[in-house]
């Protein structure tokens, strides 16, 4: 993880960026709003994986950050009538704050206990948003206006919205990339690999874990805020435990021990749900089956499998 990008990775990133930049000009080939959803979920999955794949902490309540940021963005933009940049900021900050609370309560527990605690806390957030007066309960917070960014970029235009989402997603992923390679990141790896040793070396383990938790929550929140603006909707499904499960599946499918693999997982899961959407319970059923197959026989995920292929020793002459 400490190595610089390999040449093939650089080429891959450039090609991907060019393709993504081309999307809004060929709406007859791919639907830009669908790609925006993909981008939001990819950022969400990578933010989640910053905690799981990189930090080694499994949260089962990440929908709380995604969904509450969506609701807060809706509140700021629709109810308070403030511009979208403040909506995004408000949503992200709220998610970060919530992450600090969750983190402070959860990091004392490890492994499955951490998963159970975060799941329970997220369920509490779900019920709170179900009851708060502005959220519209089962109907969700609808018709959130996209507004004009900085007073002169009209986001009602899908092309402008698309570029904002792309820019913020790339910025978020870049931030994750930098965090992973920073001195802070090295300490996090040390804590993940051998917590007592890191502690004995004098590192304030709790503070590092909490910081990572807050970062992951804030970026998940950014993804949720963007989603609220793109679809002009913040709904209960954004805070529901199903979404927490979906993001775990994205991480598992893409590669639980990698940081950017989950973006691949996000693409697959969102695509699957998009095509199965009309079939009701079948989405849940198929998602569950994929989950079970992955856990039983594909635990390294797609990115893990690619890594294994690349590092396989070549047959000698």
């Amino acid at each position: 993880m400490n190595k610089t990008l390999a040449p093939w990775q650089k080429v891959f990133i450039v090609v991907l960026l060019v393709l993504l930049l081309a999307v809004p000009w060929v709406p007859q080939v791919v639907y830009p709003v669908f790609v925006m959803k993909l981008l939001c979920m990819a950022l969400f999955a990578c933010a989640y994986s910053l905690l799981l794949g990189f930090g080694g902490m499994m949260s089962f309540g990440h929908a709380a950050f995604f969904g509450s940021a969506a609701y807060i963005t809706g509140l700021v933009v629709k109810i308070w009538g403030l511009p979208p940049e403040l909506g995004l900021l408000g949503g992200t900050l709220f998610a970060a704050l919530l992450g600090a609370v969750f983190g402070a309560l959860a990091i004392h527990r490890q492994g499955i206990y951490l998963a159970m605690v975060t799941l329970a806390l997220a369920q509490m957030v779900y019920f709170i948003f179900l009851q708060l007066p502005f959220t519209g309960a089962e109907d969700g917070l609808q018709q959130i206006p996209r507004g004009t960014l900085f007073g002169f970029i009209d986001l009602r235009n899908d092309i402008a919205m698309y570029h904002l989402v792309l820019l913020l997603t790339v910025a978020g992923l870049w931030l994750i990339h930098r965090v992973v390679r920073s001195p802070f990141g090295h300490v996090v790896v040390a804590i993940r690999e051998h917590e007592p040793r890191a502690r004995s070396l004098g590192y304030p383990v709790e503070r590092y874990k909490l910081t990572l938790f807050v970062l992951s929550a804030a970026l998940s929140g950014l993804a949720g805020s963007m989603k609220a603006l793109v679809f002009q909707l913040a709904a209960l499904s954004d805070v529901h435990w199903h979404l927490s499960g979906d993001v775990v599946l994205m991480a598992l499918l893409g590669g639980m021990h990698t940081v950017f693999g989950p973006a691949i997982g996000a693409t697959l899961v969102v695509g699957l749900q998009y095509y199965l959407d009309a079939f009701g319970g079948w989405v849940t059923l198929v998602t569950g089956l994929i989950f079970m197959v992955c856990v039983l026989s594909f635990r390294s995920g797609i990115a893990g499998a690619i890594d294994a292929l690349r590092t396989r020793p070549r047959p000698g002459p």
Partner: protein
Amino acid sequence: MTEVFGLPLPVLAGQIMLGLVNGCFYAVLSLGLAVIFGLLRIVNFAHGAFFMAGAFGAWMLQRYAGLGYWAALLLVPLVVGGLGGVFERGLLRRLYGLDPIYGLLLTFGLVLVLEGGFRVAFGTSGQPYPVPANLQGVFNLGFMVLPIYRAWVIFAALAACLLTWWLIERTSLGARLRAATEKPALTQSFGVNVPRLLTFTYAGGIALAAFTGVLAAPILHVNSGMGSNLVIIVFAIVVIGGMGSVLGSIVTALGIGVIEGLTKVFYSEASTTVIFVVMALVLLFRPRGLFGKEGAV
């Protein structure tokens, strides 16, 4: 009319009773969860889904086979428990020795499969299930009216809990089970068939969940989502009580049920969140849980 805290006594007593009924469901479920976790080191996310399958089992027996409540109470736990055993033998077993997270994820996958499956088959609306004829009616206790069925639920659930406790703590089977929990390799070397014990334990925990499902069928609407909301609450209860002792988890579950019932009376807006608030407070002041053992974090 007698008043307590400015509320008529029947209202207060009624809510405490409702809380106790819920607490009984929590108790049997968290008991099964704790026993499975103790031996298998697996957090069985699918516990709620098997509870739901139990309720559906009772409903289906009545609808398609014409079998009533009492037959369901006997048959459904056997069948669903057997299915649980098959699941453990065929799939869950492959994950032993790996990070326990994978067990949680596999059973989570099973939750989605079961929930999605029942939704595809029966839709999302609740199916009604009648209270059995010989348990209809109420006891009039003077200060409150107690529906006979709810009294039966409390009795049956507590009996199931005590029976499980007795089985684990007082029989030779339970002694082997506890030995396998502490030192699986050593127990196996003494000739105890530990893998079979694991299957048996998992099936037993699932049968308890299915039994609770049948008990709940006449009270809650039988629908595909009824288990998962419950299992998240049970997780919180397990965190609150700690996985240390069997009796501890029963006491915690009943207490939480009553707290929930009382919250409905005094501040109903918070009744869905109060359990999680209690969990947060316990985590702050006693991270290992009320009855958790030292070091078992």
